């Protein structure tokens, strides 16, 4: 991956002054993570998504931008909403989609990830959307296939489209990202959502504080440029956004903390804690919610919550990403 230094600050206002003098040109064929992207490229994706949002409000919710292209949805790890979101995004751009899910597939017959992708690529796929339980799998694939690769979550590493839709939602609701303070709460250690959010938010000039029990918040995260706090109550009054990560107890049980009840008591967002936040604090959650664990229902469904807006924006972000990588060549 070549880092593009030329496309940094100037294009922050890309939406207004894109032409004709210095048009920002997106050149990547892959979206592997926010680590690779410049601030300018991230803003370009957000601005492009703003152009796509309108498509979903039309009576005919379809544009021909990817007509004749094939998008392979490769889910080596189960996913429902990310898969549906990408599938609908590809459909709205008139692409054909094919779906691969590892459960009950040739992977259980011993085929490697690369062989699986190469076989599907031979059917004429232009872009792969890849979800994989191994960190770095999309990067390995990008080096080995011609088609574009979009990372839809790899192991504990990155989930770039989730972080992009989170940032898009923050910008939409609060009008900016630079200068805001964002708390990311929960299982930081195992969360690709947390990593991508920290990387993206830092690049766009936000402060990030990660919050959770010491077992879930490794001190090694600090060099990514974030503060660490072990008490949610300590940071509530000073943050503009609280992003509550999902506790993946189906993966880890409650081995990382004594009980779900205790977790909720210390790190759950409820109306009592919400009252101690800034008045227009934004409460986010990547879903699916464990009601009564990360959030109580009154908070999840209340005016500060933007959880369903996140889901809606995810569609615009994924349309933008598919469109951009389809135009890229590097």
């Amino acid at each position, binding site marked *: 991956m070549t880092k593009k230094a030329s496309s940094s600050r100037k294009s922050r206002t890309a939406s207004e002054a894109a032409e*004709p003098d210095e048009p920002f040109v997106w050149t990547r064929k892959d979206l592997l993570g926010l680590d690779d992207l410049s601030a300018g490229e991230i803003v370009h994706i957000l601005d*492009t998504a703003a152009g796509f949002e309108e498509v979903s409000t*039309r009576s005919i919710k379809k*544009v021909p931008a990817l007509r004749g292209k094939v998008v392979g949805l490769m889910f080596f790890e189960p996913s429902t909403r990310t898969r549906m979101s990408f599938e609908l995004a590809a459909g709205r751009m008139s692409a054909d989609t094919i779906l691969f899910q590892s459960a009950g597939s040739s992977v259980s017959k011993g085929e490697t990830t690369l062989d699986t992708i190469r076989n599907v690529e031979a059917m004429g796929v232009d872009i792969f959307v890849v979800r994989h339980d191994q960190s770095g799998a999309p990067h390995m694939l990008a080096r080995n296939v011609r088609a574009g690769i979009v990372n839809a979550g790899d192991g504990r590493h990155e989930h770039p489209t989730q972080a992009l839709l989170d940032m898009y939602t923050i910008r939409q609701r609060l009008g900016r990202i630079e200068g805001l303070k964002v708390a990311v709460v929960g299982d930081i250690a195992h969360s690709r959502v947390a990593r991508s959010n920290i990387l993206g938010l830092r690049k766009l000039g936000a402060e990030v504080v990660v919050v959770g029990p010491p077992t879930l918040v490794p001190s090694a995260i600090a060099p990514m440029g974030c503060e660490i706090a072990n008490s949610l109550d300590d940071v509530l009054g000073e943050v503009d956004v609280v992003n509550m990560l999902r506790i993946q107890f189906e993966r880890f049980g409650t081995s990382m903390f004594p009980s779900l009840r205790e977790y909720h008591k210390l790190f759950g967002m409820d109306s009592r804690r919400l009252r101690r936040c800034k008045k227009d604090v934004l409460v986010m959650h990547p879903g699916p919610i464990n009601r009564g664990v990360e959030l109580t229902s009154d908070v999840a469904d209340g005016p500060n919550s933007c959880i369903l807006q996140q889901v809606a924006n995810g569609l615009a972000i994924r349309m933008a990403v598919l*469109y951009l990588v389809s*135009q890229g060549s590097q």
Partner: protein
Amino acid sequence: MRKLLTAEQVEAALDRLWEAVAGELPSETPIAVVGIRTRGHTLAERIVRRLREERPDMSVESGVLDITFYRDDLSRRRGAPLVRATEIDFDLDDVWLLLVDDVLQTGRSVRAALDALHDFGRPKVIRLAVLIDRGGRELPISADFVGRKVEVSSGELVRVRLLENDDEEGVFITEKQDR
């Protein structure tokens, strides 16, 4: 970059365009004016302003079209142009629609715009107004209203610059760059 038309000449061309449009405005059918981003949009806004001044009794809707998705050269360009929102928040069915662009050359932008409009509804009539017709058509498309025809060679690029977008007003010619 050399100047082809001065600000005064642009104004004269716009006047001519307006006169031509005004002579054909329907009296019964609702009117919509839709500009193609970016400078077609600016010109459309100017036409709408004039329409509302001179024909205050007419009902006029206005919108802006981003044709990026509909371009036929999308997959032949290097890199992705920025997509911006199309804003047509009114019903296109059965309106008299004036489509506005700054320069008409190959006709491909207009073809893309017609496709895009088709996704929003079925206007009764679509008429095309352009500030500059520079020739060089590649499709069977022509403008109904033209501000000014100019003769330029195929290697040259005609650029309209408008105060609202460019802080200056005029029409310029540059050598075509490979884009």
